[in-house]
């Protein structure tokens, strides 16, 4: 690739290609008999001739104008080292993002009937396993990291794309079949990362403008991204290591604007052919990218860690939105599902279905043994908060229904329409002594918006599996 930069070499190569094309064409003509190999040879000869002609129209020194000209890219900061530093951050960051994302997928227990939002995933379900109830903070940490790290990586992704963007306009656009495939694989990588970031960021702000289901598309988009990511790392890792070794980070961080010089030319051609004078030092650019990441983290992380941080989460979509005195954010209000006083008043009944069916009034439910649990409620959108819940153990309710050890339980809400109005819990979740049908939170009766008169709270489950306004629990013999 680097060799082709030299116009003389390029001309020699063009001559060679043209001669080869002519030779092949002569050979093809000589062969009278029409055979597959001769046809292929003719096609190859024609392709070579076309390529030679095309290259002659736009020889290396004269690509089409605009960004295709190497001279159009002037920034003296671009270079293999800078790209490699950003790549190293992304390699670690995107790997964590992928793992936390796949864990989050497993947390929904899609293998239980009724929970699966991605029935067509097929072999992609290989990463699923029975989601545990302990440690109870696992989902909270996993999803908090997924959202916060995702936002933190936005500036890094933008900087990385900026650093390699001249390569999009590399001329000539096609050098070999290998290079064409490699460029196509970048559609999976760049398209994947932008698709995942866009859908994720819009989803945490409840901006559902995409014409597809978020859960389905975010999962399948992730797999397209993973394919692009793995192949990119496989092909470019040695180059990244070479880039990282080309300069010393600590020394680079001491160079001010006045001392900022272009990097050495690299085979990838990332360094500008005609670098301009710098307007910012390399450390200045890295500081700006890192500062932007930290700013984004600072503005949202409070929604996941709670405490005083929650007040600082100015851009956490649920950071400051919590209602006193519980300080517990709401996801789906009672008003939005049309809940009325008739639904949760004296006429409220909880149905337990097992080997026998039991119907309980709210008073009967409160008369059952009450247990307390300090458990986080954690939303897929990133916010989470630890609360003290009291209520009846699901295991006790299972016994009431005559099924002390069910294989699964389907929890249904009064809510008639909308996603996640029912969830299927695993045997482990029902059996866990901390899994409650809660009636109070932080010492108060459940507010309407939080599922009055009763909601489930399951250790380590995603928030949407903590069904609100529970009307029926069906204990199942088979999952």
């Amino acid at each position, binding site marked *: 690739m680097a060799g082709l930069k030299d116009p003389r070499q390029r001309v020699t190569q063009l001559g060679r290609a043209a001669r080869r094309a002519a030779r092949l064409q002569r050979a093809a003509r000589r062969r009278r008999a029409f055979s597959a190999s001769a046809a292929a040879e003719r096609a190859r000869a024609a392709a070579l001739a076309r390529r030679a002609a095309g290259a002659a129209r736009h020889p290396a020194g004269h690509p089409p104008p605009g960004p295709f000209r190497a001279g159009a890219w002037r920034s003296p900061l671009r270079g293999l080292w800078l790209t490699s530093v950003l790549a190293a951050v992304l390699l670690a960051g995107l790997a964590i993002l992928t793992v936390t994302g796949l864990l989050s997928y497993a947390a929904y227990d899609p293998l239980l009937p009724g929970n699966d939002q991605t029935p067509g995933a097929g072999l992609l379900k290989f990463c699923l396993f029975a989601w545990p109830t302990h440690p109870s903070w696992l989902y909270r940490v996993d999803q908090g990291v997924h959202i916060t790290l995702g*936002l933190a990586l936005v500036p890094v992704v933008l900087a990385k794309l900026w650093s390699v963007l001249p390569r999009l306009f590399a001329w000539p656009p096609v050098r070999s079949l290998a290079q064409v495939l490699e460029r196509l694989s970048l559609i999976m990588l760049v398209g994947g990362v932008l698709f995942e970031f866009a859908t994720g960021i819009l989803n945490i702000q409840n901006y559902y403008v995409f014409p597809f289901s978020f859960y389905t598309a975010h999962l399948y*988009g992730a797999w397209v991204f993973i394919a692009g990511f793995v192949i990119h790392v496989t092909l470019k890792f040695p180059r990244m290591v070479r880039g990282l070794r080309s300069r010393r980070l600590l020394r680079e961080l001491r160079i001010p604007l006045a001392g900022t010089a272009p990097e050495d030319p690299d085979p990838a051609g990332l360094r*500008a052919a005609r670098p301009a004078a710098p307007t910012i030092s390399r450390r200045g650019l890295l500081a700006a990218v890192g500062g932007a990441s930290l700013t984004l983290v600072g503005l949202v992380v409070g929604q996941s860690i709670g405490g005083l941080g929650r007040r600082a989460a100015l851009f956490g979509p649920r950071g400051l939105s919590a209602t006193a005195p519980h300080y517990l954010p709401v996801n789906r209000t009672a008003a939005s599902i049309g809940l009325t006083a008739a639904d949760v008043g004296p006429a409220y009944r909880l149905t337990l279905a097992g080997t026998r069916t039991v119907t309980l009034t709210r008073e009967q439910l409160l008369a059952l043994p009450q247990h307390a649990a300090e458990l986080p409620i954690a939303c897929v959108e990133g916010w989470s908060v630890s609360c003290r819940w009291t209520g009846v153990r699901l295991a006790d309710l299972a016994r009431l229904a005559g099924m002390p050890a069910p294989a699964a339980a389907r929890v249904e809400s009064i809510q008639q329409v909308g996603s996640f109005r029912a969830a299927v819990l695993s045997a482990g979740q029902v059996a866990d002594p901390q899994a409650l049908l809660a009636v109070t939170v932080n010492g108060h009766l459940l507010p309407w918006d939080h599922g009055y008169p009763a909601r489930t709270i399951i250790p380590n489950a995603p928030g949407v599996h903590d069904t609100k306004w529970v009307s029926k629990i069906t204990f199942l013999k088979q999952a």
Partner: protein
Amino acid sequence: MTADVTGMAAVGARARQVAGWVRRWYGASPLHLLALVTAFALAGYAVRAVVAAGQWRGFAEWFIVAIVAHDLLLFPLYSLADLPLRRLLPRHLTRPVSRAQPRPGPGDPAWATAAGPHPTVVSPATHETGWDHLSAPAVPARPVTEPVAGPPLLNYVRIPVAFSLLLMMVFFPLILGPSQPEYHRASGLSTGPYLWRWLAITGVMFAISAITYAWRLRRLAARDRHP
């Protein structure tokens, strides 16, 4: 034994021959091809699931639009937005100096003047810029005289601007409020406060930038007084 060795050597030679043929025809080693085909197969399998879910059209559109929006829209836009900043802002605010002969230091154009035989300094009024971001070509200009220039101003403006726009890009559904209906249904709250928070954060960023700039000016002034 000898036959085995010869046989293996022949197989090895044949393998090398095939590898060489693939390399000529394909442009890289067969492993490169194998790895890429595997990656495409995995992505294809995921796309198959999207098709099965009946959502391939929107999925494909968003995928392509995401790439085009970044590479052919966002990038040119922020590069172009950087141009007026670089053109209009004085690259160095002039500052008074108490000494007759200021000691040139890094960052001062005077330093460049002193260092090179052909003094070059970026003059904001005349320099021609590439359309590319984060660069400004140096053009020969008149040598700098009193009063001497302060530190470059450009980054103290464009970094808070960039932070503010980044925040807008990431959180526009909350800041500008298009997600208000769904957001309200979910949380019972309004997106209203986010616009004010964005304005406040933008203000704070500019304030921090201004304070840092002032601090740098003072430090340079102090250095001039006590060389």
